[in-house]
């Protein structure tokens, strides 16, 4: 009957580890937390612009260093505690005191001041243009300060929040049976109105084949773990729709610029010329993706169609190698089974590089080990993917190219160019978007010539779901996160 139809079943490939918003850094964990906590601002539909959420309005001081927010007055946490300025201060202080991954987005934040019960002021160390965008990330969720009752050994209630949700959002955690399912239930008293879907079940089904069967039999509404090939096969099946949207999920190859002969830009360019970009997109992505043009992906402001884009050109590549006087080059490429398409991409790269006389040896490691090697720079080439946490080119430019971010932190090519450093550091503190755009374009042009990464493609977001699920909107900043309060089942 009707009651049953207000349950949404999402198949997910693996269990999540942690639910503490000041701790978790993975989109699959945000899937649960994002709907449990409210933020000051939120993304507006498909766009990367922000709109008010808890904050009804805000002011930014002229120097771009002080943000003043006016909070809604009707918001209560699930336990009835009113959500006020203190809660906001508590939440941001907590993130910073915890000092885990999410705090990275708020390093610029120097102080949160409670002006009155419903006014809160945030002081930045220096102007930081993407700050509002940061507030829409998962780390900006407002946690009920009462959680401190659960604190143990000064852990700021981390242990408790790892397995519990304590917010004011539209969904609460009803049940979490490890490796079986996570069940969220609607918060009937939500200030934004009671969500239509009363229960959301995240059922863990690791095997893609099994997920597909369940989806086809209508036992599940959404399947997250299907491979591209399988999704393509689902096209045209009755009762199934496939959401396809451009995303900012970027796939690229790190080139260790500190190693000989990869320290020579010509060699790196030769590699970039050797790659069969269109072949990869056509075969591995089944056409559901586009080749990247420069480091800033399409869909993010700052992206420019004028940036140079490498295309497969074997002759050119050979010529560059000859100019660099490199012969019989043998390289190792690091990857893991974390991303299922990596193995195939590596094989294509191997074939491509063979054409220009470069021998590529694949080395597959467990994901954890691979990351360790990346951090230590112990590789020649390495496969990588990147997704922005908030809608700002900073997410790409500073992380990837700033020589302060060597290693796993982001600059995985160990790329260092003082000119680029200067440009992107300036862009980071400027609050004028046109100026930043200009700075980033200059930087991109240099970078593309230096070629510290091979920019492969931007993958489309593909999600198969039952056609009776309505209202889902994909926001490129919120991959794996569902706008559950706006969704319903017909």
């Amino acid at each position: 009957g009707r009651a049953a139809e207000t349950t949404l079943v999402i198949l997910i490939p693996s269990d999540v580890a942690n639910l503490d918003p000041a701790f978790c850094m993975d989109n699959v964990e945000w899937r649960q937390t994002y709907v449990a906590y409210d933020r000051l601002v939120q993304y507006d539909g498909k766009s990367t612009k922000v709109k008010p959420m808890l904050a009804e309005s805000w002011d930014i001081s002229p120097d771009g260093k002080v943000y003043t927010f006016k909070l809604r007055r009707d918001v209560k946490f699930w336990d009835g505690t009113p959500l006020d300025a203190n809660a906001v201060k508590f939440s941001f202080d907590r993130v910073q005191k915890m000092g885990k991954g999410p705090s990275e987005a708020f390093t610029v934040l120097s102080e949160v001041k409670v002006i009155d019960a419903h006014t809160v002021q945030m002081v930045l160390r220096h102007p930081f243009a993407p700050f509002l965008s940061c507030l829409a990330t998962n780390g900006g969720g407002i946690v009920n300060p009462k959680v401190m009752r659960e604190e143990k050994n000064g852990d700021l209630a981390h242990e408790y929040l790892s397995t519990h949700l304590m917010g004011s959002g539209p969904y609460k955690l009803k049940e979490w049976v490890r490796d079986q399912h996570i069940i969220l239930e609607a918060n009937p008293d939500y200030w934004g109105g009671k969500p239509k879907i009363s229960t959301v079940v995240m059922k863990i089904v690791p095997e893609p084949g099994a997920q597909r069967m369940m989806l086809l039999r209508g036992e599940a509404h959404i399947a997250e773990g299907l491979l591209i090939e399988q999704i393509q096969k689902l096209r045209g099946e009755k009762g199934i729709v496939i959401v396809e949207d451009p995303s900012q999920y970027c796939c690229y190859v790190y080139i260790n610029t500190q190693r000989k002969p990869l320290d020579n830009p010509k060699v790196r360019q030769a590699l970039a010329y050797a790659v069969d970009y269109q072949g990869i997109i056509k075969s591995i992505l089944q056409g559901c993706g586009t080749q990247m043009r420069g480091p800033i992906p399409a869909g993010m402001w700052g992206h420019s169609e004028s940036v140079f884009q490498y295309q497969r050109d074997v002759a050119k590549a050979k010529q560059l190698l000859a100019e660099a006087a490199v012969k019989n080059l043998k390289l190792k490429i690091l990857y893991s089974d974390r991303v299922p398409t990596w193995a195939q991409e590596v094989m294509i790269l191997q074939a491509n590089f063979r054409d220009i006389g470069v021998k590529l040896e694949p080395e597959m490691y467990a994901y954890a080990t691979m990351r360790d090697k990346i951090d230590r720079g112990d590789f020649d080439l390495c496969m990588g993917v990147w997704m922005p946490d908030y809608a700002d080119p900073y997410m790409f430019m500073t992380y990837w190219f700033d020589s302060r971010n060597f290693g796993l932190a982001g600059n995985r090519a160990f790329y260092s160019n003082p000119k680029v450093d200067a440009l992107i550091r300036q862009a980071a503190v400027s609050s004028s978007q046109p100026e930043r755009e200009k700075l980033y374009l200059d930087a991109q042009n240099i970078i593309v010539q230096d070629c510290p990464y091979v920019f492969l493609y931007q993958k489309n977001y593909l999600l198969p779901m039952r056609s009776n699920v309505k209202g889902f909107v994909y926001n490129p900043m919120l991959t794996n996160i569902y706008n559950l309060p706006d969704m319903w089942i017909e």
Partner: protein
Amino acid sequence: MNMLTFVSRRLVAMVPVLLGVTILTFLLSHVIPGDPARLLVGQKASDEVVKRMREELGLNDPLHIQYWNYLKQLLRGDLGMSIRNRRPVVQDLAERFPASFELTFVSLLICVIIAIPLGILTAVRRNHVVDHVARVLALLGVSTPVFWWGLLLLLIFYFRLGWLPGPGRIDLAVPPPAGHTGLYILDSLLSRDWRALGSSLRHLVLPAFCLCYVYLAVMTRMVRSSMLEVLNLDYIRTARANGLPERAVIFRHALGNALVPTVTIVGLSFGELIGGAILTETIFAWPGLGSYMVDSVLFLDFPAIMGCTILVCLIYMAANLIVDIAYGFLDPQVRWG
């Protein structure tokens, strides 16, 4: 030697083995390259954050200190906190173990139920067609990847025919039975929750069959060869010379003795399966130890790896102990000698 001293002797003998296992796991899990602290704080974290994390996890101490600390914890029954999900490893294991136990137990039960008659049949009809067919069928089981059978079974019985439920331990609509063991079948029986019983039994069928097929061959062969062995013995000849009917000779006189080695195999397989059913668990979304263990290794979650290993070793040893006790019941020489 009475049973009690025998059991306690075996228990004491387990201690050095367990200790060795902890040392071995500890060393092994620490030689794997990779930094759990880095994994924990997320990839965009700065070095500063990582360093703090390392300290927090005690990863900067010398290895022997780390081991000693671990051992001290262990003696208190504390397996530490999982690095991955910040929960006590004991709690994680306590949730997965019943699922694994249930699956393993049921599939071995099915296996024994099929393997014993099949083994007897093939032994008695040695080199007849039945023998060959049974052997080839059983061989198919050992030589074919589990996921093949798994997906095939799902495809037929769940997807096409709809006779059996899909992946999972119990229907979503059915609340798990109340109880403390975590074994759904036992719990639902105890609490007379027939709906849960039916649902969990139906969910068990496919994975249990899938898992049991692997061991069927080994066990059938074991029963067959020990049966052949026993049928050649003098006292079987005596039984025949006394004019006992063939049925009595095979089932009364031969089978009891032939079961002894089979019991060993069952015990060993139990230990092996409890942590080794990774693929079956994956395909049937079974929340067991196997996949937990693999995830832990891939994540370099040391406390979880150690916890799993110790648990699996304990189960293995317990299974062997039970086998030894079963020996006592099957073989009076052990019981009285």
